[in-house]
């Protein structure tokens, strides 16, 4: 039996220990905010925070996070008012929105690590997250805004 804390709640799993965390979250735990985009850690749509680090849930097995604390977009802030979320809305970042949970989780992890990232640091830290709609200019602006306080 694997136990993992997700958004503060203890969850357990007695199925395949190799099951990617992504599918545990989406299909077993019903937390569909975390998205599938590639399954190969190439696009970042499935980004969640494990302890304090951004990880790709599609290549992280449920066993890898046993005993650890996973935060998904649903648990980032109780009212959805994390500075990154607020900045995102202020800048009107999303188009289709599908990649945005991953982008927001990546940005939140970046700001935990580096509260005042530069232009280049934002671009580097966010470069694992693809947005096919092409919201990049606004993503960069929103991360910058979040880092300066909304």
């Amino acid at each position, binding site marked *: 039996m694997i136990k993992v804390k997700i958004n503060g709640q203890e969850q357990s799993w007695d*199925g*395949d220990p*190799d*099951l*990617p965390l*992504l*599918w*545990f979250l*989406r*299909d*077993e735990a*019903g*937390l*569909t*905010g*975390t*998205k*599938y*985009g*590639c*399954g*190969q850690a*190439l*696009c970042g*749509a499935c980004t969640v925070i494990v302890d304090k680090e951004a990880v790709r849930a599609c290549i992280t097995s449920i066993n890898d996070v046993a005993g650890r604390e996973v935060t998904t*977009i*649903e648990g*980032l802030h109780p009212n*959805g008012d994390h500075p990154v*979320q607020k900045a*995102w*809305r202020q800048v*009107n970042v*999303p*188009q*289709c*929105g*599908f*990649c*945005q*949970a991953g982008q*927001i989780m990546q940005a939140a992890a970046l700001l935990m690590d580096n509260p005042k990232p530069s232009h280049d640091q*934002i*671009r*580097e830290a*966010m*470069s*694992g*997250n*693809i*947005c*096919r*709609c*092409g*919201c*990049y*200019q*606004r*993503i*960069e602006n929103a991360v910058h805004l979040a880092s300066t306080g909304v």
Partner: protein
Amino acid sequence: MNFIDNPRRLRGFEKQIRVEKVSRRSILKGLGVTGGFVLAAPVMSRQALAYETGAGKMPHGVVVDPRVFVSVAPDGIVTIVGHRSEMGTGVRTSLPLIVAEEMEADWSRVKVQQAHGDEVKFGNQDTDGSRSTRHYLMPMRQIGASARAMLEQAAAKRWGVPATEVKAVNHEVVHSASGRKLGFGELAADAAKESVPAIEGLKLKDPKDFRYLGKGEVSIVDLHDITTGKARYGADVRLPNMKYAVIARPPVTGGKLVSFDPDAALKVPGVEKVMQVRGWPWPSKFQPLGGVAVIARNTGAAIKGRDALKLVWDDGPNGKYDSVAYRKELEEASRKPGLVLRKEGDADAALKGADKVIVGEYYIPHLAHVAMEPPVAVADVKGDKAEIWAPVQSPGGTREDVAKTLGIPEGNVTVNVTLLGGGFGRKSKCDFALEAALLSKELGAPVKVQWTREDDVHNGFLHTVSVERIEAGLDKSGKVIAWRHRSVAPSIASTFAAGTVHQAPFEIGMGLVDMPFEIANISCENPEAAAHTRIGWFRSVSNIPRAFAVQSMVGEIAQATGRDQKDMLLELIGSPRIVKPNVKDLWNYGEPQDSYPIDTARLRKVVELVAEKGEWGRKVPKGHGLGIAVHRSFVSYIATIVEVAVDDKGKLTVPRVDTAIDCGTYVNPERIASQIEGAAIMGLSLAKYGEITFKDGKVQQKNFDDFQVVRIDESPVVTNVYIVPPGPDTPPSGVGEPGVPPFAPALINAIFAATGKRIRSLPIGKQLEA
């Protein structure tokens, strides 16, 4: 983001609208309405409208009926139906916003309800072709105005005063003479009993009183849900007892399953069943390819199970499809005469007699859409009833196709439209919903079919592959006197009909025969090309290769004659005029020529505007270059300037992009800017990396590692968007797609300016590294 002269109002719709009043009982089911006459406007006469669109000619036309689209609850909440699919353009907000504007509803008390697929009830729902605002600005205004009139009538009756003395203002109706007021909620029940007003008397708002339209101050309705993970896409639908499925499909288009061994798959923990899925022969429009489905308790188990399947395929007639060989075929075809589609003067003779002939042979490969949400659908089929939840661009078409595929009446099919995690034309094809329907029927349980990214890349409906060959003949003075353009590419029509070798009118009308230059001798030709895979619409479609070729050729002519690119472009566009190409039944994005002519004054205007705002001719650092391109598509006009920087290792970056768009009268300039910003990224992606290739009939790429798209660290540092203020009678035109075509040629022209290298084959790939 910049707006110039952002008009505070929309103009040109003061005329009263006549809408044919007909009885259509079948559309009275929704929103608690049970009888009476309703409005429908499948035909809008030229006399009655400020402009005419092709909306009425779409399947099922337009329904203009406040009782279908608007409901007012006793608590005052106004619910407005969004009947188009939201894939990132903002249409789910923009169209209801138009209704709210016209009915004087307060947007903060408006809820948007997504329509299910029902075109008899809602009118055409195909969310493609950059048509939503173009076709629905006026109908949505009419719907809002009708609803407002009904609320006003109800208030006037309550007070016993003439309706002319009352006025709806911000969610209430006011009788200013007596100072009385009634909220929309208080009037809801009475207003519902009012007959829909005679359209002859319907008064549209004076655009100077607009609170929302043209202002760009309203965020999309899904913004909070998107940023908190609550927004529901197709992939997020969960039903009780739902099974999860992935499907192994034939790796070659037209291939068939010979045999399969499910044993290893069935041993994977969580896998419950392995079953064959019915396939249709190629081509058969959007019908499933068939294959083997693995059914599991979660998607992860289904994928692992599929990996363990042992499969034997017969590759069928396309097993030899090879992109290297096919390119040679296309190139050879482009060097010989083809079906002549437009002929003015005598291009052959003029080319022979020209002082100089410039030849450009341009290659643009297959592209995959790779929307961030791969195709996915949930189906629950019980007996002769089916319910579908899917991110589809064609809710009505999906309903029809599900009914046909299952052999049940269309009325028994419900298609729930979720948010789309990107569309770009891929989700106009409902094959994935049909797969889910077939599987659910067989399983007797609800099922979700999830395409993996590899499935999306391997089994999509690709953008065509084309060779565009242009020969331009110049006289001694450097004036272009002849233009011969041969376009060779497999047609989208090949996905509908076997044996298709010529492009369809809607493809040749995308930048080939509608070429706007003022040249005496023109020949536009289409040599034959047969398809060997499924070809489909991709955002901006044939405009991608056409704009790339035509606008690159402008750069080449400028280069050969030592002219400035922008001056050359304006010279070729020529005098301000309406272009009337000598083409039989010229396709104009489905729009009438009268309302949407090819207007070179507007084409010139966007070039001049972007040149001014984008500081054309500015001094750029060494290794940098500026390029320009303009293109009319989806009846909008767009010009783009790209500044590129190429370092000594051939690595390119884009410090700045400037784009000017004339899309006529518009609703939400903020979302127009976001579409254009995104189009620059998509343009850069296809220019830099975009290429799907085939070998032995199979797609050679699989995921974002080998079918790359642009990431944030290589995206343009700044993209400026300038919107041309509409003239008083300028009808709305497309926004979602037209931003894409001019980007690649502007970039290629910029690369030439920076490096002296002329790229004629996309993607750029490693060409600059040599």
